[in-house]
Each structure stands twice: as C-alpha cells, then as structure tokens.
C-alpha cells in the first residue's frame, strides 16, 4: 500500500493514533478479505460440485443402470431395483453373460426365438461403412466443384443444393418409399444405402472446409500439369483430412442410428439393422429385460465409444452446423 492509501484509510477509520494500531487494523482487514474470498470460492466450488452430481445423476444413471444390469438375469434385475442401492446399478454379486450370447443369437435356442443381433450389427456396420465411403466420394466431388472449380453460374446449382436441406426427411418417407420401390430396391441391402450416398448438409460443410485452402495450391498443381481429378486427390483431399474425418463420423453416426427409414424400407427380418432389431425385441409382448439391456449396450456402444475417442470432431460438426448456419 502506498502512503497515500494509508492516509485515506486512517481518515476513514477514526483515530488510528499509533503505527502499531494501524498495522493491526490492516492485518485485520486483510484477514477478513481473505476469509471472504475463501468463502466465496468454496461456495462456488460446492455449488459446482452439487451441479456436477446432479448432471451426472440425470445424464449417466440410466446408462449405468442399463450397462450394469445387462450382466444380470431378468429375474435379478427386478429383484435388485427396489430398494435403490448400489446393487441396483452395479452387479457386484452376479456376472451373467448369457444375455449377450442370446441377444447376439449365438445359440440355436436364441436363434429359434428370433434373436440375431450379430447379423443386425453386421448389417448396420456394412451399411454405415458403405454410406461413409460413397459419401466421401460423391460429397467430396460436389463440394470440390462448388468450392474450387471455375464454372459460370454454378451459384444456381448451389441454391438447388441448399434448398434440398429444407426438405424434411421424416415427412417424405412415404413417397421416398414409393420411389425406392419403383427402383426395385425395397427389401434389399441397397435400400439402406442408396438414398444416402450424397447429403446436402455434408456437401455444404465440406464446401466450408475446402474454401479455406489457398487457391495458390491448385495453381501450383496446374502448373505441374495436374488435371482436375489429380488436384482433388493430391491437393484438396490431403489438406482437408480433419474436415473429412468430421463429416465421416457424422455420417456414420447418422446411418448407425437411423430408424424410421430402415423400419419401412426393409421388412425382411434378416436385413434389419440393429436399431430396428432392438425396437422389435422391446415391442415383443413379453420382453426379457436382461436380453434387451444387452441388446441396447451392443446397439449403442459403437457410437458412444467412437464419440468418447473423437469428441473434438463431434463438437466441431455441431458447431459447424450451428455457427455457420
């Protein structure tokens, strides 16, 4: 403290006659300030921790309950749910793996009852990967056209693409079914793939990524004698890997989680992707909870694990749609 502040202080608190008293008063003030700051910080910390617990309970407890109880038999799930204790969530006393084996349809008995998650997982994985690959090829091509090629009046086409985004997907599912039916694809694997091989949202996102690259790169490649295709594969794509990963993850998640379209497009049970398969299991009249729990873990684990390892890309894909939109 400067001497002027000292004077001010002395003028506020009446009559600090001796230097000794002044020192004591200052120490007292500092102590009180410190205490107040400490209390403020600790109330902040405690509030934060309370909110942490609330968020964790609200958002994680249903998932933990499902994961934990997928290792119990249906009977012990019901026995442990009331009263609510730690045993409700974590199966410390039991390790029952049959749910998974039955849900996957690995025993003849389970297959006879119509469980075949293994096959459904395969269908989901195959269709998701196929769509990601096709989408990487065709959306990248389209975005390359819009972001980097010099074609007159291509803005008209861009409006066409952007307008596509306004068409609500759930609403046109009946006519989409009729169109795909005309193409003879209903009840085939390709019904799950073909309508989604290009997406206006992904084209739009990729245009943003590609437009960021400096145009000098293309010019340098042209001077080296590269054609348009070579510019795309050797200049644009290698420089946009994070963007391409972002859209691939987005597309994978979209196809993996898609439910309404596969529900109507494939009625053949052996072609049901995993979401349709578990919905069918649940709507059975007498669902075996343990098996349904296991099926749900299998159906959501791939995407959740993917998310946990690539959070950055997920957040980016959201921010991308939000901020630039």
């Amino acid at each position, binding site marked *: 403290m400067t001497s002027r502040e000292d004077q001010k202080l002395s003028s506020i608190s009446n009559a600090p006659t001796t230097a000794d008293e002044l020192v004591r008063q200052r120490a007292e003030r500092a102590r009180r300030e410190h205490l107040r700051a400490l209390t403020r910080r600790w109330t902040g910390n405690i509030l934060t921790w309370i909110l942490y617990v609330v*968020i964790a309970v609200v958002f994680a407890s249903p998932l933990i309950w499902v994961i934990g109880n997928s290792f119990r038999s249906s009977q012990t799930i019901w026995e442990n749910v009331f009263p*609510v204790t730690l045993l409700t969530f974590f199966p410390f006393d039991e390790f029952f793996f049959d749910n998974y084996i039955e849900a996957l349809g690995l025993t003849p008995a389970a297959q006879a009852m119509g469980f075949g998650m293994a096959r459904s997982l395969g269908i989901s994985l195959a269709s998701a990967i196929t769509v990601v690959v096709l989408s990487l090829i065709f959306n990248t091509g389209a975005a390359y*056209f819009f972001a980097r090629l010099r074609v007159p009046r291509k803005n008209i086409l861009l409006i066409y693409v952007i307008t596509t985004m306004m068409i609500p997907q759930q*609403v046109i599912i009946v006519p*989409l079914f009729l169109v795909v039916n005309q193409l003879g694809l209903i009840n085939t694997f390709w019904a799950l793939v073909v309508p989604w091989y290009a997406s206006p949202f992904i084209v739009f996102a990729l245009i943003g990524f590609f437009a960021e690259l400096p145009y000098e790169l293309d010019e340098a490649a042209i001077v080296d004698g590269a054609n*348009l*295709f070579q510019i795309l594969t050797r200049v644009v794509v290698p420089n946009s890997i994070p963007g391409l990963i972002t859209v691939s993850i987005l597309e994978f998640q979209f196809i993996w989680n898609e439910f309404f379209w596969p529900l109507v497009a494939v009625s053949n049970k052996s072609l049901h992707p995993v979401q349709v398969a578990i919905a069918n299991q649940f709507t059975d009249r007498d669902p075996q909870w343990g098996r*349904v729990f296991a099926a749900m873990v299998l159906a959501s684990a791939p995407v959740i694990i993917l998310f946990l390892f690539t959070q950055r890309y997920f957040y980016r894909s959201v921010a991308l749609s*939000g901020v630039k939109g």
Partner: protein
Amino acid sequence: MATTAGNLPAPRKQRWWQKYRNQYILFAFVFVLPALINFAVFRYYPMFWAFRTSLWDYSLMRGFTEFVGIDHYVRAFTGDPRFWESMRATLYYVSGKVPLTIILALLLASFANQERRGMGVMRALIFVPVVTSFVVVAIVWGMVLNYNVGLMNAAIQSLGLPRIEFLTSPENVMPTIIGISLWKDVGYSVIIFVAGMRGISQEFYDAATVDGANVWQRFRYVTLPMLRRHLMFVSVISTLGAFQVFVPVYTLASQQRVAQVIVFYIYRLGFIFGEMGYASALSVILLVLLLLLSVVQIRILRSDDV
C-alpha cells in the same frame, strides 16, 4: 522474376482457359453430377411424387388405381377427427419441447461453458444422449419409467412417495415423452450455445461488471443479445425437428391415442393400413406447413443480420 512474370502475360492463360473451356466444364460437372442426381431422385422427386399420389388412390400392389382429385385433402380437413387429434398432439409436443430445450440448454451452457476441472467430462455426459440412437434412448427410459419394475418408480417409492404412471396414463404420457426427448436432444443445443459463449469477448462482461451489473443482468444484457443468432438457429432446428417426432411415440406410446403425433399417424395410414394416397396427402400438408415455417424463420434470421 519480374521478367518471367512479364513473359507470361494474362492473355496466354486466357487462351488456355478458352481452348479447354468446354472440356473443363464437362469435366467439372462429372464431380457434381452424382450428388445432384441423388438430390433429384431421393429428395425432390419424392416431394413431387407425394403431390401426385395425394390426388390418387394408390396401393402398393396395383399402383395408381383411381383419380380422386382433392378428396383426400377434403377428408383431412373436414372428415377426419384423427388427423386433428394428431395435429393437436404434435403441437402440444412442439410447444413443450422447444421452449424447454432453449431454457435448459442456456442454463446448462452457462454452467458447462466455464473452464474448471471436470467440466469436459460434464460436457461429454450431456452430449452422450445426442450420439445415442433415439430408439435406445426411448427404450432405456421406457424401462426406467416402467410402472412396476422401473428404476424411477423404485427411487420414488424409496423416498416414500406413491408410484407414478409415467407412460400408461393418458395425462402423463405426453409430458413424459417431452421429457425424454429433452434429455436426448438438449446436449446438441448446449454445445451450440457453448460455442457461441466462447465467441463473446470477456471485455463486454468486464464493462458490464464495472457498470455494476449482477450475474443475471450480465446474462440478460450481454450473453443473450450476443447469442441471438445461435438462439435463432436452435429454435429453427428444434421446431422443425419437433414437428417430425416419431421414434419415442412409436416405441413407447403406440397404444396411447393422445400421443399419436402426425408423423406416426402418417406412418400408420401408409404402412399399416395401406392408404398410401391419403398418407401422401397428409405428408403434403405437413410438408407445406414446415416449408412455410422454415421460410418465416429464415426471414427472421436474415433480418437479424442487419
């Protein structure tokens, strides 16, 4: 360097350009054509097909059987109480879901926006339901809220309170479904708001603090105005999404008449009862409604830019 630049004048480039121009454009279109075809066949064509089918009696086996003109539309507006019931259910859902999403997302985002130890885990927890499929979410909550053996009623009973019929009573089913969708979708909006809040310069808050603004005033007069675009985006996206809700109704409340929203009704008409023509007419009505809505909302967005 300067001389070589002089030796490569602009006209030569122009000549290269002109000579190959037609080939260049043809080649360029190869890149974009597959995507354009996809949009035409799988997005625009179904839309027009819906208009056409809505004027016909259509069956999957025999195709277009009889031209009925606007009969389907007349039926929807005058002779079908189920259609109005489904519209009412949809509006109930939208008017509950959208405001709650925005309010809850703003609250969670103001909290999750802070840089504290463990906050990354919280953001991930809030976002996990977003990446999980709605089918799984709906079934999980269906089991959590089960009347007899669900986790929620067990917890309620452990507190000594009476059990609640979340999904089996007509009064509770819609609020329950709104709550479940809120739990699933709120993380998406939270991430958008967090991104927006990160973009607000600390200086604004410092200035407000100097002027003596408290926490609420800083939120009301700094954060909210600066998030205007994000708020608009979230309300557009969640409104359009809410009008198209299907999965939770299909998995949890297909027996409950009060919960049968419009898309579920269209699904039942088209794929259970085989009335493709009438289902298409209802699709067209919903389509027009949503297109009008998004045009209005985009207008508002645009005028916000000024």
